[in-house]
Structures are given as C-alpha cells and as structure tokens.
C-alpha cells in the first residue's frame, strides 16, 4: 500500500437532474451540483479552497468560485482527454489534500451535452485544432472516421475477430446497465429495462456497434467533495476513503485511435489497473462491485480483462451467466451506467461508487467494502478504488 492510500476521502456528492434539455447554462449546472455536494458533506462554499475539472469543461474554476462566493483558491487543475479525466479529477483533488496544498477540493463536471454540443456527432473543430491533437486527427477525420462510435467500432471488430466475442456479448452489458437503471429514479431509463432481443434489433450505428451499444447524450452536472479522511469522518455524510487513484497512458497512445500498437486494445487501462492494485494492496478478488466507464459496450469487456478480473479474451465468458448483474459475482454499473442513468462523462459513476460504500445505492450490493471506478476508455484514462472507512 502506498502512503497516499486512504489519506483523502470523498465527503460529499451532488448532482443536478439528468435530462435531454436542462434549459439552463452549463455554469449554472455546475454551481447547482457543487452546492448539492457541499450540502451533502455539511460544508459551505467558504470551506472550499480547491477546484478541479476537465479541460473540456466550459466552466472555469474561477467562474464557478465567483458564482458560489468561494474566497481564496489555493489549488485549481484540469485534466485532459475527455471522459478519461473523470477519476483523475478526484485523484488530483486527493493529492492536493494529501500533500496539504488544499483542505477541501471540489471536482466538478457540467454540460449540456444533448441540448448543446453533442459529442456523438462529427466534431469538425477537432480536426481543425492547431495543435498535436489536430495533427493526430489528420490521419482519420478526412477519411470520415470522425465519431466516437466509429473509432470504437474499429477496435470492437478486431476484438471480435481475435477472441470470438459477438454482438450479443456486447449486448449483455447494455442489458445489465438497463436492468440497473430500471430501479434508479434518477436514471433517464428508469423502469425501462431491455432484452438481448431489443439490443439485437436496435439499428446499426457503426457496424459492429448498434444503437444500444452506445451511451446516451445527456445534460447535467456532478460534483464530488474531497477532503482529508480524518476531517471527512467528522462531517455529515462521513468518509469514503480513496484507497487508490491512478492515471494511465500507454506506449504509442492516441485519443481514441491507438491503432498502431501490436495489440490495438486499451493498454492505458492496464496501466491504471496495475497502479490501483499497487497503491491499494488489493486484488480483483477484493472488489465487490465496480463502475466501469461504459460509453460503448465493447470497452466494458476489454476493461474487465485489462483490470485483471479475467484473462485476455475471456470477458465474454466472465459475463455470460449474469455475473455483472445484481446478484452476480461482480455487479457492474449499479446506477445504470452511462447507457442507463446518464452520460455525465464518468462523474456520475464516481458518485455511485460512493453510494455503494455508504450503503445507499438503489441497487445496493451486499457487503460492498471496495468499489473500483474507471474513467473513459480508448483515451488516456484514470481509475479509483474507494473503500470503507
């Protein structure tokens, strides 16, 4: 175990409602989620001295601080690479707290991703950036490979070819997520479970991916309050200690198109996994439930392998008997995931991890002592292990 493990904890979580049209600004969404998270922790804005978000977020740290009347900020930071940033925002907050750079740090992410800029459409600006990301995209965008679903479909096809996974195997992830969302009143797909047949008859988006392999587009915001574990224990909601927090980027990394490695899989998640086990001193068998970033179903299978829950190519067998549903060996995404609850760029998954440790999930896993949460895959990414106080 590293000395960092358990030094900082999540003391509060907050969110707006999740919708397809919030009807208000992204700054307001983030402010609402932050106030909710502070209220959950029993803290006020004046306690906050650090803020962290994604580089993609449209709300600056100082704008949010002004809106909420936060005074002096001693720490502010932003993480790159889209949804891969999610768990790293909490990592940065925890590192700041553990090193004494700040006392109370809020990680936030808020957007109108459905009613505003939709990530599922072709983002022409991404190919026009005057930086190395723009240069990277020059090898794919002009050819027409320019949506997240298409970039994942390329890897999914190769994965199917090498390991014999099928579209139905991908569909089982969607079915599990939607089963969990059906119990979650906050989920967009509350009371709307699906079957494998629904998945198989949904329309093709980027063959081999179908509509129900792809996460939703959502408006909303989530905020997470991080402070020292010692202080959190005395706060209203108690402490959910951060046992491990890791970032990962692997050799020959690109954003969503690391196609030039011998194995075009998601090696960056292996980097994250190895460091989570190292920091926490835990092993996959110690995890009772996990929230695996599910913007596209094939990556959930590949994550199970990279994180060591099963061998390479074995995820289809690992999940075949309902292992990832409530009552199974490793229930996943008990809030419904980003396919079922909402797509808040992975931040809503961290909140669900906290609820599992607190014992307050709508799909509570019995004896959940350790929960693993991951951020966006196919990009430089991050992960957390949260544990009981």
């Amino acid at each position: 175990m590293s000395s960092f493990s358990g030094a900082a904890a999540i003391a509060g979580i907050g969110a707006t409602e999740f919708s397809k049209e919030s009807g208000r600004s992204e700054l307001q969404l983030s402010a609402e989620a932050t106030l909710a998270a502070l209220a959950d922790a029993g803290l006020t804005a004046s306690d906050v001295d650090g803020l962290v978000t994604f580089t993609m977020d449209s709300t600056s740290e100082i704008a949010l601080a002004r809106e909420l009347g936060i005074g002096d900020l001693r720490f502010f930071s932003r993480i790159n690479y889209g949804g891969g940033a999610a768990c790293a925002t909490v990592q940065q907050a925890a590192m700041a707290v553990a090193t004494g750079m700040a006392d109370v740090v809020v990680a936030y992410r808020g957007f109108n991703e459905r009613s505003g800029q939709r990530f599922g459409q072709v983002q022409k600006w991404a190919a026009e950036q005057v930086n190395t990301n723009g240069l990277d995209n020059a090898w794919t965008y002009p050819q027409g490979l320019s949506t997240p679903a298409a970039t994942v479909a390329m890897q999914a096809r190769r994965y199917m070819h090498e390991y014999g996974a099928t579209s139905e195997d991908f569909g089982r992830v969607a079915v599990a997520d939607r089963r969990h969302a059906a119990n979650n009143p906050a989920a967009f797909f509350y009371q709307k479970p699906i079957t494998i047949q629904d998945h198989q008859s949904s329309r093709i988006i980027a063959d081999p991916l179908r509509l129900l392999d792809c996460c939703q587009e959502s408006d909303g915001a989530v905020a997470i309050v991080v402070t020292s574990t010692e202080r959190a224990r005395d706060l209203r909601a108690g402490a959910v200690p951060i046992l491990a927090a890791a970032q990962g980027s692997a050799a020959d990394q690109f954003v969503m198109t690391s196609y030039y490695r011998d194995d075009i899989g998601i090696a960056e998640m292996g980097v994250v996994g190895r460091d989570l086990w190292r920091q926490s001193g835990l092993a996959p068998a110690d995890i009772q439930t996990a929230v695996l970033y599910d913007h596209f179903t094939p990556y959930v299978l590949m994550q199970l392998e990279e994180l060591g829950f099963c061998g390479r190519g074995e995820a289809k067998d690992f999940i075949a008997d309902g292992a990832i549903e409530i009552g199974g060996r490793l229930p996943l995404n008990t809030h419904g995931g980003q396919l079922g609850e909402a797509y808040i760029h992975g931040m809503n998954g961290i909140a669900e991890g906290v609820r599992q440790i607190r014992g307050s999930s709508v799909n509570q896993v019995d004896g959940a002592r350790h929960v693993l949460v991951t951020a966006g895959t196919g990009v430089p990414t991050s992960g957390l292990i949260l544990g009981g106080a």
Partner: protein
Amino acid sequence: MARTDEIKARGSSPARVAHDPVNAPMIRHWAEAIGDRNPRWAPGPDTEAPPAMAQVWTMYGLDPARMPGDPLPDTMKVLDDAGFTAVLGTNCDQTYSRTLRPGEVVSISTRLADVVGPKLTGVGEGYFITTQSVWTVGDEEVATMTFRVLKFKPGTGRVVVDKSKSSRPMINRDTEFFWAGTAIGELRVQRCNACGELRHPPGPVCPSCHAMDRGFVVASGRGTVHSFLVHHAPAVPGKKLPLTLALVELDEGVRMVGEVSGDVAIGDAVEVWFDPIDDEVTLAKWQPAGTPAPEPQPEEKSDLPVWELPITPTLVVSTALATRDFQDVHHDRDRSIGHGSKDIFINILSTTGLVQRYVTEWAGPQTQVLSCALRLGAPAHPYDTLRFTGTIVSEIDGVTTLDVTGLVSVGTHVNARLEITR
C-alpha cells in the same frame, strides 16, 4: 395545370417593342463585358450588333412593368403559387436571320409552347417551361428563340455528396511530406535515416533512436485489412453513407486508416488509390486488391484551341448588366446564397455571348452565326475557370456545324451546337 393550358391557348403575345433601338453604347458595353474584340462591333458607321445580343434588346428593365399577356411571367406566377419558386435556365436555342444595326427597333412576340412535369431533377422537383419567341424589325423576322427554364421547389433535390465538405487534414512541417506524396500518387511512409525504422503516423523524432534525421520510403500501396467498420450514422460531411473504413496493415509493416470502396473482411488484400478532395489535398484510399482500374477518360478532342477563362465577380456582374439581366442571382451574392446558390453565377445570355466569342475568335471576325442551341448544366461561379473546347461536326454547303463544351470544376456548364458561315 389548367391555368397553364389557358396561357398556352392564348397563343403568341402581342408584339412588345424594345425600350431602346439597337444602339452603339449598349453594343460597346456588351463587347467590353464579354471581352469580344471583333471589329464589327466597334463604334463606327458600319457597327453591327452581335447575334448573341438578340434577346438583350427586349429584356425587361430593373424595375419592370411586365406587359400584360406575356406568357412567361404569367406561367412563372402559376408555378410560384404552387411552391415551385426557384428558377434555372436550361436551354436556349436561337436562330439569326441577319445581324442588326444601330437605329433598328426590335419587337418580340412570345408564346408558351409547353409545361412538362413534375420531374425529379438534380436540383429538385420541378416543371420545364418552354417558350418560343420571334424578334421582328417592322414585318421582318430577324431571330427566333426556343427558351426552356426549370421551375423547381428549392431543397427537394437528390442529395449530392460534396467532397469539398470533407474535414481537411491539419498539416505541419512534420507531416507535409506525406500530403505532398499523395498529391503526386505516392504513398510515403516516414523512415528514420539513422536506424531505418519505418513509422506511421509520422513525427519529428524517431521513438527508437531519437534521431531527428528523417526521410521516407514510397510504399508499394498494398496491404491487408487489420480491422474495419461500416459507418451508418450520423452523417459525415463530404461522405456518402454507409461508409467503410479500414485499418490497413501495409506490406511494409505500418498501419494506416482509410476509406475503402467495396466490401472487405479482416485479412483481405487491399491496394491504395488516390482521391483529390480539392486543389490542395489528396486522400489515400483503399480498394480490394485486383479491382479493375476505372476506364481511362478518353483524350479530350478539340478542333478549336482550348480557351480557359477565369471567372471573376466582375465578369459575372458586368456581363449580367450588359445583357440587361437584373436578376439578383447574377449580381447580389447575399441574395444568391439566400436562394440556395453558393454564389452569384453567369447568366444564360452571357454564356451565349461567350460561346459565340469563342467560335468567332477561331473562325474569324467575318463569321456569321446562323444559330446557337445551348444546353446549360452546372452553374459557373466566381473563382472557378470556364474551359471551352470545340469540335467540328460537319461542313456542308458552306455551313459549318460546331459543338462547343464549357466545363467548370463541378461539371459541364454548357453544351452548345452552332451553325456558322465564314
């Protein structure tokens, strides 16, 4: 279309007299705008009017009071009311009995010949309206015209993929060699001059030996499919869906993402081909190995010297004004875009003038144009080039029949057949 039948039944309209007699200033304006230096049009005691100006004399003005009974505006109104609000000239066949001279007063009489439709065309659903006109001086018939326009509903055309809407690659000094290669039909793979390592996508430093001394090899253009996908949704600008994209493992050992024409599976052999998306960027794309090469375009045949005319806004506007054609699509860019066009474009009277200039500059200033039948296609917009070629169809009894083609970047702007005597 009972109302158009009524208009047809009215027959020829009463003769309408031109606002002005044939006159030297208008001839000079026209010759300047078209760039036609034929001395016969120059001011002087023997000035003649170019045949292509036949219609100019009887054009309505900028704020026209339409003559009651003119069948074309009446027919246009019927179709406007039915939602077919956009207009495109498609054919103009003129015959000329003789040239006109300053001082002569021209009259026009027009009848509605036909309204055919609705037809689904490239620009939309519409009706082809054909009118026939006769120009007279006194009792003498001096020219005739069969004129056809398409009245269509804007926005109902077939979807046409515009390659120019594709994302363009960012290019910098580390990657420009690749794009310089595709432009000349070479697939270039970066090679480290120090250790020989091949690399794609390229970059400034060799990750193996850290040398910054790099060159390239020209790849064979052959490879196998490592993975692929078929994109169905959402729309991708500049691409027709579904779109097959592959990760190709080149025989040289590096991988490249590219669009594939044709069906493929993992492990299939593919070969490169080069597709220019605009003047600056050429994409390397792939096709199943052994796909027959497209039929080579037959060598362009032209008996007349090829003439390339750069289209400028000045050319479009000055020729429109010199032909007294005040429709906004020929001079007002904003309003032209508002009508669904990408810019202003050359009007049909000016195209007629340019075709006749091309032929008479080749055949000699004394050439008499007897007839000129035009079929219009792609619009000629500013910043494009109009490329004229001409072939001799026949020479019988002193009458030479010629076919003239004018191409613009997006296709054929005009096909014309002329009869001339020299």
